[in-house]
């Protein structure tokens, strides 16, 4: 095979070299799949305890953690995207005050680790009350949702701002010249296009939000990693619960990519003015199943 590719590259022109590059890529990718596949097969056949894996006790605990994570993700997602739209609009505000406050918000929540923010909210905030006086006794999950929302609201805000910046100025100018107010032009002309521009970045961020729920283990939220850690420390078997962890996270993140892909496809069709109407119909699961991930 080496001799074949050599003769091709020495005798041929640019096209032949392209083929060489393509073949090398295929060999590398194939080798990668073989190596990973072999390693996985070896782990799954020697390291995983299948009676433990299928044990109803463990399945139930992971299922509980999974549904808790799904609930936290859905609520934090909706809140962080809503907050992000407001932050994005604040960033492009013609008011200096609003713009600077939005910028400060983004700098803080994007510039400090989510773990730090969770510690502030979960361990710090309750200490502002006297010992034992903090009124919320199950603060872990509210703290988690607040932390994820504030943190990802900053990222979504930047994605929205980027989406708005990417809409050519001519769009706004044309709308204004037709007599629209700035707000009306934003709503009818600029934002629908900005949304489309920002969708990929927002989707990316929301998938990161799913994975960020794993940090909640340190504030005693009984999420997926907590179940793993408990089983690993009791059974002293890392690989079996790791299989569960992997499958459950991928189940959420892959559904989420499907949802984002569906949204992106929809926002590419038809006229922009109708797009928001279609998007707002998403929750009721109206016509096709593309978004029901």
């Amino acid at each position, binding site marked *: 095979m080496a001799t074949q590719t050599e003769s091709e590259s020495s005798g041929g022109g640019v096209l032949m070299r392209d083929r060489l590059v393509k073949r090398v890529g295929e060999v590398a990718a194939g080798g990668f799949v073989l190596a990973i596949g072999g390693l996985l097969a070896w782990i799954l056949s020697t390291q995983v305890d299948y009676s433990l894996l299928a044990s109803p006790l463990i399945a139930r605990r992971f299922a509980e953690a999974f549904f808790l994570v799904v609930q936290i993700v859905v609520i934090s997602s909706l809140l962080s995207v809503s907050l992000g739209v407001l932050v994005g609009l604040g960033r492009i505000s013609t008011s200096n005050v609003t713009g600077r406050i939005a910028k400060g918000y983004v700098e803080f929540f994007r510039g400090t680790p989510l773990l730090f923010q969770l510690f502030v909210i979960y*361990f710090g905030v*309750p*200490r502002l*009350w006297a*010992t*034992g*006086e*903090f*009124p*919320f*006794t*199950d*603060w*872990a999950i509210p703290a988690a949702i607040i932390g994820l929302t504030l943190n990802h609201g900053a990222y979504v805000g930047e994605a929205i701002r980027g989406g708005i910046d990417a809409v050519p100025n001519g769009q706004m100018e044309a709308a204004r010249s037709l007599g629209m107010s700035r707000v009306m032009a934003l709503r009818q002309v600029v934002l629908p296009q900005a949304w489309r521009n920002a969708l990929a970045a927002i989707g990316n961020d929301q998938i990161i939000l799913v994975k960020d729920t794993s940090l909640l*283990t*340190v*504030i*005693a939220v009984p999420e997926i990693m*907590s179940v793993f*850690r*408990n089983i*690993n*420390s*009791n059974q*002293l078997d*890392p690989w079996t619960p790791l299989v569960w962890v992997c499958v459950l996270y991928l189940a959420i993140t892959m559904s989420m990519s499907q949802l984002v892909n569906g949204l992106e496809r929809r926002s590419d069709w038809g006229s922009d003015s109708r797009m928001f109407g279609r998007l707002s119909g998403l929750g009721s699961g109206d016509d096709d199943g593309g978004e029901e991930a």
Partner: protein
Amino acid sequence: MDENRAVNRRQYLTAVGASGLAATAGCIGGGGGGGETITIGSDIPYAPFEYRNEAGDLIGFDVEIAEAVFAEQLDMDYEFQETSFDGIIASLNNANFRVIMSAMTINESRAERVDFSDPYFTAYQTVLLLEGSDIGSREDLQGTSVGVQRGTTGEAAAEDLQEDFGGDLQIESYDQINGAFDALLNNQVDAVINDNTVSASFAAENEEVVFLEGDGVAADRDDAPPYLTLTIEEYGIAFRQDDDDFREEVNGALATIRENGTYEEIYNEYFDG
């Protein structure tokens, strides 16, 4: 204990980090011997067993016992490596360190994976509450939420209670014991189940925090603490299962420091006799 000696001890406690790996590689295989560095895995902080003072120096009962056993008796260097308690046995067996000294209770399930030294400390699982709590007995814990540290025998004791109560006990597991203590102060849990001496050192610093009173499993022991005890446990130094020679040497050293008064001196320093 005079101050000079304490400083001397601390000189051995080098920072953890890059040196850990090299030291671990150096100490795999072979028994004792001068100049060898023993890496000790430990979940820090867990006052008064292993914690840092304001200057960041590692101190505590385990640290001083390590000094007495490894440095003074066995003529070895040693260093502590911080690790999280819930993965500490796996880390030992993965050769990340040579032994575990982390106020670790000897129990059957752990003994399946590691070998323990002779016991060097007796501890009890106890219940901490906020002053004025409605909880007045072990039975009152039913239907409440308790904070524990992940992977500890405190968590195991809470799980046993949960089973006794037919599942009617909420267990919140924190990475470090301080998280559980914070949760108690912050009204997130009604009680904390943990080793008596560690809880006592926290209670000593917070006047709102008290032990749950009552006669527990240790009630008829002479040295029993004056509050409810859920279990009686003994701490041991954990070794990999192929490390018998070294374990025997350490057992010998532990016996020696009990005989020559060093153990008592250290004990009195941390637990007021």
